[in-house]
């Protein structure tokens, strides 16, 4: 029995979970950053984000809203930038998931990461892994994006610390580097 009082219940924290029937679970494989992971008996409704973090302990992917709004959980799904909290994990079975850790071997990501540190784009750093994925994706598609385009393209990645100034500076630094400026 749920709480006897049925007031309005804002917030998941206050919400009453659905009945107490056993929850549907599934098992599948995920390919993350080139490695295969077996997921055993995960809740069917689990997001890719929660399976990465809570089942596979891949905490390089961050969570901050779990509603697709902040971008801290950004990964590439078969090369497309997505918010992993909006992707069903069980549906990513045959996809290639790339987190910031998986970007390593490629050149631009390394330059982006170095520029983030050098230019002061990292403060608390919680937005950073998702931000690095998004910036790397942007620069791969639009190497010459101007400031306005960069700002718009990063609008799915919230940073609460930096006010974005140093992040923009880091993006510019990578662009300059690559253009040999």
């Amino acid at each position, binding site marked *: 029995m*749920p*709480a006897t009082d049925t007031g309005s219940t804002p917030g998941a924290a206050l919400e009453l979970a659905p009945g*107490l029937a056993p929850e549907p679970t599934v098992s599948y494989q995920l390919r993350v950053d080139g490695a295969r992971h077996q997921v055993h008996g995960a809740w069917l409704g689990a997001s890719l984000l929660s399976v990465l973090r809570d089942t596979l302990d891949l905490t390089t992917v961050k*969570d901050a809203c779990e509603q697709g709004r902040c971008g801290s959980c950004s990964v590439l799904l078969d090369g497309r930038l997505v918010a992993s909290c909006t992707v069903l994990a069980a549906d990513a079975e045959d996809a290639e998931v790339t987190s910031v850790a998986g970007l390593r071997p490629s050149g631009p990501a390394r330059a982006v990461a170095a520029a983030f540190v050098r*230019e*002061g784009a*990292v403060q608390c750093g919680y937005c950073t892994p998702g931000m690095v994925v998004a910036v790397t994706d942007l620069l791969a598609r639009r190497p010459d994006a101007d400031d306005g385009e960069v700002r718009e393209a990063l*609008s799915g990645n919230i940073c609460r610390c930096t*006010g974005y100034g140093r992040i923009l500076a880091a993006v510019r630094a990578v662009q300059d580097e690559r253009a040999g400026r």
Partner: protein
Amino acid sequence: MTGPGAWPVPGADRALERARIGRSAPRPDGPAKVAGTFPYANDLRVPGMLHARTLRSPHPHARVRRIDATAARAMPGVAAVVTAADVPGVPTYGLIHPDQPVFAPVGGVARYVGEPVAAVAAVDGRTARRALAAIEVEYEPLEPLTDPRRAADPRTPPIHPNGNIYRELTLRHGDPGARGPVEVVDSYLVGQQDQAFLACEAALALPAADGGVDLMLATQWLHSDRDQMAACLGLPEEKVRLTLAGVGGAFGGREDVTLQIHGALLALATGSPVRIAYDREESFLAHPHRHPARMWFRHSATRDGDLIAVAARIVMDGGAYASSSPAVIANAVTHAAGPYRVPNVRVDGVVVRTNNPPCGAMRGFGVPQVTIGHEAQMDRLATALGMDPVALRLRNAIGPGDLLPTGQAVPPPLPVREVIEAVAAAPAPPPATAATPARDRPGGRGAQADPARIRRGTGYGVGVKNLMFSEGFDDSATARVVLELDRDGQPRAVVHTACAEVGQGFVTIAGQIARTELGLDAVVLAPADTAVASAGSTSASRQTWMSGGAVRKASVAAVDEVLRRVAASLRLPPAAAATPRRLLTLADGAVTGPEAGVSVGLADVLAAGGPVDVTETFRHRPTHPMDAFGQGDCHVAYACAAHRAVVDVDLDTGLVRVVELTLAQDVGTMLNPLSVLGQVEGGTAQGLGLALMEELVVTDGMVINTTFHDYLLPTAADVPPLRLIPIEQPAPEAPYGVKGIGEAPTGTATPAIVAAIRDAVGRDLRRVPVRPADLVLPPDPTVYLAPPDEDPEPQGPAEPAARDGMGLSDATPGAGTPPGPDQPPAPGASP
């Protein structure tokens, strides 16, 4: 902190080694953070750990009649359920006054939506969540008190044994009845902002063999958490050990205890490690927010524009529990006249208890609210006088030696005039034209604003913010520096403080200071924990000054010890041995003294005499409580800032785009210019958020928008480039002349943007955040605190009316009077 998984950042390590104060040293934790390997509190996992969740009251005000957790406890996978009945120590806690129950007890009252009632530990998060649903709680809803004005009325029945008034303050300076020939009067409303640090609250609690508990967590003040936890857990302080885990932002929102005691209780109850972590919705409900405020102001001036008097009345809604409300209202009251010379000041401030969400510390700590008010008033006064708003501000700018409304003389330096002049002189950005892409017009590509209907506006916001803790609080910070040999026999320094690195960059600065003082590149920072004495809170713009000061002091003492050892080995005459710094210097890992003909490696000194281990505590000049008229040297230091905002407003839709922000700021000495820039850019963006979009909407005690879908944060597309003009005037009392820099610009960005919007649309805007509807629909009359021509306080000689409802009495009806941890007096400032 560069863990094994960190990316190699070319050049970063070398730059770091060379980084002394004054240079833009990169963050030592940067490589791990970009690689995603930096361990935040919510990344911590240990084998066998349980997952905790919290059951919260859905009512703004309700008596808890019954809690039955039998079914939940019986569920497979559930390890423990704890309620108020399981709290072994003091049933309540709080930053200043312990008035908040750990859990709302049966027979007691839950006072806000989201107040914890029980917590569950289970094998996984979903089981814990399902167990919450199986806990039966019977509430008897009570009438909520949600209007702060009604709460301030002494006739309103108290909703807590401590009463409905957290603190009422009266400030009288000069002749409180003084008036001038030119007057402007108005009321202003500031909405409730959330800190919205990006990483939600999290901790890992580990039961210890000695019956105590170890907690790894994200917080702003380890020792304050520790003291409150120990009292509620009924444990001696040494059995509650806290270690800082990675903190994903704070901004004041981690000053209060939220999940700490719950996690520890569950770990102790189960004997297992317990991970307790909030999601965003729970985070919105769990931590105190920025106080919403209603403010009435009357500014009086001569016809030449000299301020004669400022009268103000401030009502802040503190929500259900005290948190830092008593200190926040002190800041609001003492800063209400702004950075101006005002001979006669009369301010009445009250912060009240309601059944709204608790409010506490957020960057600026009571000052941003009044800055919004006094800056709006200065613009209106300029209009009434037919004066330029910059000229009016310059004419009245306060400076060192001038008296503040508290009667305190402004401690030098305070370059108010310089910051105003600097922003006013900065070149203006080019106007929007038909060629401006839609993306860069108000409303962006979606709205396709008509260039002919865009109006440019320029506005100024000038403010002053106190630094560090106030009102006689014994504010201290401790650092330990150990000089030792590493495994390769090379000398290195280990710096240990309890200072919470929340993103602000203390780890960078601490290393820079230690390197500079020790003349040594190999400096490592030990994790912050309670094994060393308190660093105080990472708030109130205080850590660079305070913990930075402590690191410097300890480093200096460590050098002295090294030199003493060398001097002793030289068998110098006692006079020379007593002052070895005259003869010897430690630099680049060696002690040299050309006069004495000495050159000895630090490694040799340490090998011979063992490690040097010193601990030093730093204190700033003491502050004093205010008297009954709000007079006294209650703040230790101040920093000022001025923003100029340039906005474009779409007159048809009321959409606003901030085009450019210029900030001139009193920065003391910049120990790390890049870090200064990052801090002020971040603070400015939060001020922009408050100006345009950030508001927790609370209706009848219910928070309506607890997600990032509807609590909107500025994105990269909303925040324009910031031009920073640092005004470097070293503060003589501070280590290296530093000043805290994170708060002042948060307070000035908001009024500057609002002023720019006013300038563009020609409307009086009294409510923040400014919504598009405020610019295009008929004005909303409900925004007034009092009709603008009516003085809410009776005239005549004022009686100091200090009501302090915060006795140390019990917060839980019928539970007896808990002794309570020995709580410090109100720290007067925060993040």
